[in-house]
């Protein structure tokens, strides 16, 4: 699976920061994706087994070991994020606010599967939390962790407004 995303900022924005944000978030988002998919699949498997036992039917599908080997989501901490940018001069991460969480509104911006996504009109247009939302959305597929989003917000604020 490959994505081609065109970003056409209307204002000057150092590419190096975009590169760092994307470079650090992409692995996290992939891990979150894997974690969610494996968890859902495991749930389906258990449900199937329970159903089979109830109906006294022997499951014929091969067993799958799901130990959550790729589920790193819960291991990510603020410290991990800071370690990713040891020489940064960014301000400490603010706690994720409800407003930020609520503004993670992919709703209404979600890509339609039946047509090409036009994300280049959305990103880098606003110099506030929406930028982070859009950046993280740009990095989808994945699930922006609140801590990471807050950190990116701090980065963005520093870069753009500082």
């Amino acid at each position, binding site marked *: 699976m490959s994505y081609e995303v065109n970003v056409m900022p209307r204002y000057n924005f150092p590419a190096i920061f975009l590169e760092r944000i994307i470079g650090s978030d992409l692995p996290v988002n992939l891990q979150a994706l894997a974690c969610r998919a494996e968890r*859902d699949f495991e749930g389906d498997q258990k449900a199937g087994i329970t159903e089979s036992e109830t109906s006294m039917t022997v499951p014929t599908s091969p067993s799958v070991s799901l130990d959550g080997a790729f589920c790193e989501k819960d291991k990510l901490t603020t410290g991990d994020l800071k370690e990713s940018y040891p020489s940064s001069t960014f301000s400490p991460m603010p706690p994720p606010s409800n407003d930020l969480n609520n503004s993670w509104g992919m709703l209404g911006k979600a890509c339609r599967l039946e047509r090409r996504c036009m994300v280049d009109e959305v990103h880098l247009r606003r110099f506030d939390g929406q930028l982070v939302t859009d950046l993280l959305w740009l990095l989808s597929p994945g699930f922006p962790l609140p801590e990471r989003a807050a950190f990116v917000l701090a980065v963005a604020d520093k870069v753009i407004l500082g």
Partner: protein
Amino acid sequence: MKENGGVHRCVIASITVKAPVREVWNVLTAYESLPE
């Protein structure tokens, strides 16, 4: 992350998911659940 000519950047990442493709696709397209 590497330069791919001019302003273009190329980033490649991979991961092994122990789940069917359908399950992964369901997660990818569950837009309303992305913030979770």
